[in-house]
């Protein structure tokens, strides 16, 4: 393999690193490989480079993941799903399957919402709450699809899909409401400081 071809493949392999790391050090790493290829036997350089890539790519991703501040989106999403479960029970009536599905969704999501919120409560709400309108738009879009499709005659299979769309839309709209409230609360908190 020629040095130029090798460094091109190496540049491609660098895409596996997290973007922030790649943007900061990618060109230096390629330059370093080229320097090594000038001074050492290519087989030694590439063997070392492959082992290095295999070890450090997961390590850099893990570092980025560990350093990421816990997000407020996940607990809000679970809270939204829980609310959707309650709404399914309320709207669906006392039918056995609807009651069981709605209750299970509500309880499980509420537990997950609490567990994920516990991990994030020390972190200031930042960023995700500002995206409440995206959840609202997606939820309204899903709800609109449900309304349009169910207005005509549909098969039982499509009806099942539409129930899923309804649950997703309710979850998204609830999440948007929760994030919106969090944003308002944050704004008020900042105003009182």
């Amino acid at each position: 393999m020629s040095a130029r071809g090798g460094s091109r493949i190496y540049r491609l392999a660098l895409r596996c690193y997290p973007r922030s790391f790649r943007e900061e050090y990618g060109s230096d790493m390629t330059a370093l490989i080229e320097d090594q290829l000038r001074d050492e036997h290519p087989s030694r350089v590439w063997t070392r480079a492959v082992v290095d890539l295999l070890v450090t790519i997961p390590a850099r991703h893990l570092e980025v993941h560990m350093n990421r501040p816990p997000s407020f989106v996940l607990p809000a999403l679970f809270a939204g799903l829980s609310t959707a479960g309650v709404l399914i029970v309320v709207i669906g009536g006392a039918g056995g399957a609807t009651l069981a599905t709605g209750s299970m969704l509500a309880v499980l999501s509420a537990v997950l919402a609490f567990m994920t919120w516990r991990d994030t409560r020390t972190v200031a709400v930042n960023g995700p709450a500002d995206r409440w309108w995206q959840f609202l738009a997606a939820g309204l879009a899903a709800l609109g699809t449900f309304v349009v499709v169910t207005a005509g005659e549909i098969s039982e299979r499509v009806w099942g899909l539409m129930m899923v769309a309804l649950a997703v839309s309710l979850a998204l709209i609830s999440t948007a409401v929760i994030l919106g409230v969090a944003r308002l609360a944050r704004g008020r908190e900042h105003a009182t400081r």
Partner: protein
Amino acid sequence: MHIVLALLEGELHGYGLMRRVAEISDGAVRMGPGTLYGTLNRLVEDGLVEETTDRIERDDNERRRYYRLTGTGRTVALAELERLQSLVHRVANHLTGGSIA
């Protein structure tokens, strides 16, 4: 630690640093680019190493970045060197009954 010790003699760029580490470890430690820059990234974040301004222009118009120890980095490196020397000294004394000083 090898990187911090290698930088004790002054600033180095990535490849220079890699060669210096191989040199001071008698070839036992040969780092790949991911290991080198991953470690440098952490050391910079911890305030032990700092990046200096670009010093030389490469043939292909790329620029090398140089790294050097910060004041804290130098203190930590010297303390670690002293700790290792003292450890080796103590162990050697125990193993040979004090014949090696």
